C-alpha cells in the first residue's frame, strides 16, 4: 500500500501530474455523491469539488516526511497526498479496503505513511496538532515540517488563534493553509468575519500572511513551497489564505441555495482543472485532445475503483469493539 501511495505522490512532480490528480479528485467526489444518492452508504459527506488545486498544491509542495492535518472536507487532500481512489471510496462506503478499514468513514481518512494524520471533523481541531508535530521537529531537528489545512470557518475558532500564537512565539516549522471557500457551513463569510482577507490575521501574530489564488495549482504549490522553505530554515510559521470555492453545498444534503445567483457560474469560469489544462496546452505540454483522453481514462479508473470498493467485504462487526485501547 505504502509503495503505491508513494508512487502516486511522486507523480505530482510530473508535467501532467497535478492535472491528473485534480481530475481524479473531481471524478471521485462526483462518484461519491452518486454512491450516496444510490443508497450505498447512509450518513453525510463533505465534497471538495472546486478546491482541488489547494489539495494538490499542498501535496506537491510537501515532502513525504512532512505531516498534513486536514478537515472533514478531506477526500481531495487524501487523494493528493497519495491515497488511492479505492482506499478513499472504500473508506467512505465502509469497506475493509478503506484506508481505515471502514471504521473511519468520510470524515476520518488516514494515511500516516504519506503524512496524512486522521482528518479532523471538529472545526479547527487539526491546527494545534500540526503545531505539536512542528514542535517535535524543532526539538529533534528532523527538518520535517507540518501543514495545517483548514477552512475559513476555523479562522473564527479559538484553536486557530491559540495555534498561530504558539507557532509564532516558538517560531515553529508549520504552514497554516486556510481554504477560504467563502462559506462556513451555510453562512457567507461576510456575515461571520470582519476582515476581507483572513491572511491579515497573521499580522496579529507577527508572522507572514499571504493571499494566494487557490484555483491555480501552480500558485498554490509555489506559495506552500516558499513557506515550507522558510519554515525549514528556522524562519517560523506562515499563514496562507487560499481563495477558493466549493462547488457543492456544505454537506450531502445541502444544495447551497443560499448562494447568490450567478456566483457558482462565476467561479466555474475559474475552475482549477480548466486553468491547469490551459497552462499545459499553452505551454505545449499537451493538446486539448490528449487532456480529454486523460480525463476519460481517469473517470474510467475511478468507476473501476468504486466498483472494486463496493465489491470488497464490510468490516466484521467485532472490529468496532477493538482498537479502543492499546
Amino acid at each position, binding site marked *: 500500500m505504502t509503495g503505491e501511495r508513494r508512487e502516486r505522490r511522486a507523480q505530482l512532480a510530473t508535467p501532467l501530474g497535478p492535472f491528473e490528480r485534480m481530475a481524479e479528485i473531481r471524478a471521485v467526489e462526483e462518484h461519491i455523491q452518486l454512491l450516496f444518492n444510490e443508497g450505498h452508504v447512509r450518513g453525510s459527506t463533505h465534497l471538495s469539488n472546486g478546491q482541488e488545486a489547494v489539495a494538490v498544491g499542498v501535496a506537491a509542495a510537501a515532502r513525504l516526511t512532512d*505531516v498534513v492535518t486536514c478537515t472533514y472536507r478531506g477526500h481531495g487532500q487524501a487523494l493528493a497526498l497519495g491515497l488511492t481512489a479505492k482506499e478513499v471510496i472504500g473508506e467512505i462506503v465502509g469497506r475493509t479496503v478503506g484506508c481505515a478499514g471502514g*471504521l473511519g468513514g468520510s470524515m476520518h481518512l*488516514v494515511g500516516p505513511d504519506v503524512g496524512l494524520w486522521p482528518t479532523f471533523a*471538529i472545526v479547527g481541531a487539526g491546527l*494545534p*496538532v500540526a503545531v505539536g508535530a512542528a514542535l*517535535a521537529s524543532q*526539538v529533534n531537528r528532523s527538518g520535517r515540517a507540518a501543514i495545517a489545512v483548514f477552512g475559513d470557518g476555523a479562522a473564527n475558532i*479559538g484553536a486557530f488563534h491559540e495555534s498561530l500564537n504558539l507557532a509564532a512565539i516558538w517560531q515553529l516549522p508549520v504552514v497554516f493553509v486556510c481554504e477560504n471557500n467563502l462559506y462556513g457551513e451555510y453562512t457567507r463569510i461576510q456575515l461571520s468575519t470582519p476582515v476581507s482577507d483572513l491572511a491579515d490575521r497573521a499580522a496579529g501574530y507577527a508572522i507572514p500572511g499571504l493571499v494566494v489564488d487557490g484555483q491555480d495549482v501552480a500558485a498554490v504549490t509555489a506559495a506552500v513551497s516558499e513557506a515550507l522553505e522558510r519554515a525549514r530554515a528556522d524562519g517560523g510559521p506562515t499563514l496562507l489564505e487560499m481563495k477558493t470555492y466549493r462547488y457543492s453545498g456544505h454537506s450531502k444534503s445541502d444544495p447551497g441555495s443560499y448562494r447568490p445567483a450567478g456566483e457558482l457560474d462565476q467561479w466555474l469560469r475559474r475552475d482549477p482543472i480548466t486553468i491547469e489544462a490551459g497552462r499545459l496546452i499553452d505551454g505545449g505540454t499537451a493538446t486539448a485532445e490528449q487532456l480529454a483522453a486523460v480525463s476519460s481514462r481517469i473517470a474510467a479508473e475511478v468507476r473501476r475503483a468504486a466498483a472494486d470498493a463496493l465489491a470488497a467485504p464490510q468490516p466484521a462487526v467485532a472490529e468496532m469493539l477493538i482498537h479502543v485501547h492499546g
Partner: protein
Amino acid sequence: MTTLTLSKALNEGLRKALENDPKVLIMGEDVGKLGGVFRVTDGLQKDFGEARVVDTPLAESGIVGTAIGLALRGYRPICEIQFDGFVFPAFDQIVCQLAKMRYRSLGKLSLPVVIRIPFGGGIGAVEHHSESPEALFAHTPGLRVVSCGDPADAFAMIQQSVNSDDPVIFFEPKRRYWDKAEVDVAEGLAAALPLDRARVLVPGSDVTVLTYGPMVRTCAEAAVAAAQDGRSLEVIDLRSLAPLDTATIVESVRKTGRCVVVHEAVVTGGLGAEIAARITQECFYQLEAPVLRVGAYTTPYPPSRLEEHYLPDLDRVLDAVDRTFGY
C-alpha cells in the same frame, strides 16, 4: 525509604520519567520557571532544560493539541492543566481527538499522552479551582482515567501513566499534595501494583467503602472511627476509574454485602452511579442493602466559606455506613 509529600513524590516520579526516556516532555502553564503553581514540576526545567520542560501560554486546547502532535511524532508528552476547571477549553482535543485517534487508525496510531489535573476542593480555592470532573473523562472510550491517593502511589502511578501507550487522565488530589508518607524512590516499577488495579487499603468484613483521590484518607479515617463502634470497614482505593477494577470490587462486596461509594464529585451521574450499577448486577444476591453514594450536592462548587458544608467528610461517610444497616 524517604518521607515525601504527595507533591514531591509526583515530582520524583516525573524526574524518573524524564531520566528514563528522552522522549518524555512536560508542558503546561508555568511548569518550567515557576515549577507549577503546586510546585509539582519544581526544578525539572532547571535540570532537563527548556526543550523538555516547556512553559506554554494560557491555551489549554493548544497545549493538548500540541501534545497530540508530539505524541504522533514519537514523544511522550505530559501536560499539566493548572486547575481542574481549566481542562474544559481542552475538552474537544481530549474527547474528540486524543481518545479516539487509535480507533480511527485501526490501532496503528498510539497516543501516549498524560494529562495531569490537580482536582477536588478543600483548599478554599472556589469554583474552577476545586472541581471533580473525572466522570466526564471516564465516560469517554479511549481514555484511561486514574487518581492517586497517597505519595507512594503518586510516585509509581505517574511513571506507569507515562509508560502507558494509551492516553491517561491523571487526577491529583489537590488537598493531599502536602500529605506526607514513606516512599521508596529507589524502587523500580516491577513490584508496583498495575495501573488498572484497585487496592484494598484497609481489610474489613462489614461494609465495603469504595473511594479514590482526596477521599482515600477520609475513608481510612472512617474505618478507624467505625472500628470504635465495632464495625469493620473494608476500604478500597479504586486508583483506576477507567477501566474500573470490577473484579476487586465484586470480590469485596460479595464478602461484605454492603457498599458505600465515596467521591468529592457531584453524586448525580458520577462514578458512584456506574459502580453501583455494576455491583447491583454482579452482587445482587449477596447485597444486604442498596449501594449508597456519598458525594457533593448537585450544585456548582460553592464559595470557600460554604466549602466545608459541601464536601463529603468523615461524618457523611459514617452516616452512609450506618444507613446501610437500616435495610
